[in-house]
């Protein structure tokens, strides 16, 4: 039996990037805000201590800071004719857990999507005609434009202290930046990171091929910085322990470094950790949320009434919470109707591994977002007509780490053990680098999320089921990109290269990317979206849902910059809602 708690103005589900930003901005106006987080409290000095943080086995291999599948996982299959089985051990993607969420263990690449990404359907029709779209696609325009989001991208970048080089300030192309980016109002808050030897070779080679390389925008920051919330960060030391780790240097932007020190001082804010939200409670007519029910570590249920419910978990778990709470009509692929779970998307990875005769790449001297990129083949920055695919990729040269349990590359054909393997590992480590393409994935009728009929979590609730595979459009794109990467790798002077193509069905086993998008998308039509353009539920107007679950399809960039921008965009709408509750978009 749930014990009923006193009412709060706002209840926030999940205390990661989006939850912490909204909690701070709303509690500082005097609202009573409670954030409910299913994982533990985590902070830099106590949990990412320099004496324990650089531990590859514990964090990268055994997954210490991630959500434990025992607590919650998904089931997966590649297509609707198969039986889904649980992802018993994380592989392809790594959801976070605890305060800070995936903002603790991310690499820190902080991009803005390109203007065309936001109106991809209209744009592609205008330039190529309807015939360019792949079979069974659900590609749809975003309900906001790049220009509308620009001030909110700026806010998030200045919150996080992002290091980078602008390519387009108020329409003026800036040398050394990305000439394809949308116009920005001002440069990044801190200068770009230092780059390594591989990036030097890539910059020269890509420029020689007529491409436009630039340093990646990075949340591992290059210089000391104090953000508008008064939180201070220190310069990155290129330690090579970013992705899968908390940063012990206060150098990687995270809720811990950028928001929590300010948030926790707000007297009307309270966090409850180790407490899992079971569902959003609805009024009898299903049109208003009355709060949430959560369960603490001891199995005690609590009912937390609130006037406003902000769903701020990792995107996949936002979708599951909506399904478990009965908010929005679940997607049914057979009829192609319903919206919750519709348009799940992911990303492609492909490229070329480059072996050099004699180089010292020092891959251990690295950072999660160290690297240079070229966007000449991203979005619609190139003519798609001859290729027969939609979408594109950001092509990069990067070393994120040289941690040896997971990074000890050898040329293809090398035995996996024995003296020959040992010799190859020893000879290859310093002289190998790669050129990679992180590509978009479009949305399709048969890639979706719903509740699994068989498997349950320890609280007895159905796991969410993921039905996903790469489609021909994505394979074609990713493999074309691999060839582009290979051209660059050869121009860099590699003695030998190996293509990494997208082959076979999507598998949960090898790590690919934690850029899961969609399932609770925003749009202008309630028949094809869960949320309106302000991330407000069409069906329950006092529920807002943050995160990449709102993306109608995925782009060729890391999602966090756009997730941050959408949070600030929605915040303004939430403030309007609080002055005058009700649907912010009238149909």
């Amino acid at each position, binding site marked *: 039996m749930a014990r009923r708690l006193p009412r709060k103005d706002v209840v926030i589900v999940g205390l990661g990037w989006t939850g912490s930003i909204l909690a701070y901005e709303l509690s500082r106006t005097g609202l009573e805000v409670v954030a409910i987080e299913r994982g533990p409290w985590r*902070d830099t000095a106590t949990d990412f201590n320099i004496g324990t943080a650089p531990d590859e086995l514990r964090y990268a291999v055994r997954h210490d800071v991630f959500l434990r599948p*025992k607590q919650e996982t998904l089931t997966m299959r590649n297509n609707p004719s198969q039986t889904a089985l649980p*992802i018993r051990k994380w592989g392809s993607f790594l959801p976070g857990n605890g305060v800070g969420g995936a903002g603790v263990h991310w690499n820190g690449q902080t991009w803005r999507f390109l203007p065309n990404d936001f109106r991809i359907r209209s744009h592609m029709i205008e330039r190529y005609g309807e015939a360019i779209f792949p079979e069974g696609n659900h590609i749809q325009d975003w309900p906001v434009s790049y220009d509308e989001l620009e001030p909110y991208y700026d806010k998030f970048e200045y919150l996080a202290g992002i290091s980078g080089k602008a390519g387009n300030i108020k329409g003026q192309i800036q040398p050394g930046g990305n000439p394809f980016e949308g116009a920005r109002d001002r440069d990044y808050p801190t200068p770009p990171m230092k780059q390594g030897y591989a990036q030097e070779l890539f910059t020269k080679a890509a420029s020689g091929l007529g491409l436009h390389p630039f340093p990646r925008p990075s949340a591992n920051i290059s210089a000391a910085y104090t953000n508008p919330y008064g939180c201070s960060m220190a310069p990155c030391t290129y330690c090579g322990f970013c992705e899968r780790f908390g940063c012990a240097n206060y150098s990687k932007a995270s809720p811990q470094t950028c928001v929590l020190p300010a948030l926790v001082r707000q007297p009307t804010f309270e966090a409850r950790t180790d*407490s899992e939200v079971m569902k959003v409670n609805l009024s009898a007519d299903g049109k208003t949320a009355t709060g949430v029910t959560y369960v603490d570590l*001891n199995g005690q249920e609590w009912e937390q009434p609130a006037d406003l419910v902000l769903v701020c978990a990792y995107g996949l778990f936002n979708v599951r919470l909506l399904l478990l709470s009965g908010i929005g009509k679940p997607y049914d692929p057979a009829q192609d109707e319903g919206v919750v779970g519709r348009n799940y998307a992911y990303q492609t990875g492909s490229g070329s591994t480059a072996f050099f005769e004699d180089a010292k790449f020092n891959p251990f001297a690295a950072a999660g977002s160290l690297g240079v990129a070229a966007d000449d083949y991203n979005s619609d920055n190139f003519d798609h007509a001859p290729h027969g695919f939609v979408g594109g990729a950001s092509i990069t040269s990067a070393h994120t780490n040289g941690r040896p349990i997971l990074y000890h590359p050898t040329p293809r054909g090398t035995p996996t053990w024995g003296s020959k393997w040992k010799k190859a590992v020893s000879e290859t480590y310093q002289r190998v680098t790669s050129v990679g393409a992180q590509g978009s994935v479009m949305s399709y009728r048969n890639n979706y999320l719903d509740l699994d009929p068989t498997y349950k979590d320890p609280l007895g609730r159905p796991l969410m089921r993921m039905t996903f595979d790469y489609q021909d459009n994505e394979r074609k794109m990713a493999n074309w990109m691999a060839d582009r990467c290979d051209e660059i790798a050869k121009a860099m002077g590699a003695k030998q290269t190996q293509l990494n193509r997208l082959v076979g069905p999507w598998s949960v086993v090898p790590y690919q990317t934690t850029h899961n998008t969609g399932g609770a998308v925003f749009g202008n039509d309630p028949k094809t979206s869960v949320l309106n353009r302000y991330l407000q539920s069409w069906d329950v107007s006092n529920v807002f849902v943050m995160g990449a679950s709102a993306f109608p399809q995925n782009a060729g960039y890391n999602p966090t910059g756009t997730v941050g921008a959408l949070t600030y965009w929605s915040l303004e709408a939430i403030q309007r809602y609080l002055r005058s509750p009700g649907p912010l978009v009238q149909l």
Partner: protein
Amino acid sequence: MAHLGSHSPDGKPLTSAATRHPRHITRRSLLASAALLITTGGASARVVTKVLPWDPNEAYPVVPVKPGGYLFFTSEEAAIVDAVVDRLIPTDDLGPGAKDAGVTTFIDRQLTGPYGGHDWLYMQGPFSASPLPTQGLQSPLVPRQQYRLGLAALEAYCKTSFGGRGFVQLTVDEQERLLTAMEKGEVVLPNFSSKMLFSAIHSNTLEGFFADPIYGGNRDMAGWKLIGFPGVRYDYRDVMEKPNQTYQLPPVAMQGRPAWGEH
């Protein structure tokens, strides 16, 4: 001790006290209003408000492995694992191999911890008899069972197929041929997948050879020296200033390096 001001989420004062880590009340904790929700079973959730909670050693540092003896393996099992890892990463002119780097001890200690029971993984049934390769791990056997059953099956196989000799008694050449066949799943062990056993030992061997020495393997940072990984120095700004140059300093692990004790 509960922090002063501890309360349950409905504001009722707490009469019993429990924390995640029992400790003295310090001035800091008196000032903090970070409170723990006390529940009857002793498990606690936590309310954080007004100040950041700061509990020392929340990062629960790793307890360093002390070599010597085995906590999980029998001496017979340890001898087989020693022989297998010695083939997987042999000692040769490039330096120590897995056996000499303490990998058997590493695996033994890992098997006694949460990894050995797949404690953090989703292990609820039903378990499918015919999973897709894309669905990854689907066996109900946890690593402790994989080693116990798998090593027994390997030993039984060897005794039958090699005239009563166990794996340890095989020649290096025989061991290598057998491991090659196990990697491909071509050997049929009695009631156990040879591929699963190979894969468990192979991945644990790589972990033990390259993980921080605090876990009992990678002795003298042999794995790191093999490739030139400097360990946990945590600051390579100097390297960024000198591209394409050999890094000169020796590796450092979480507990420092042996030379630091030689004064």
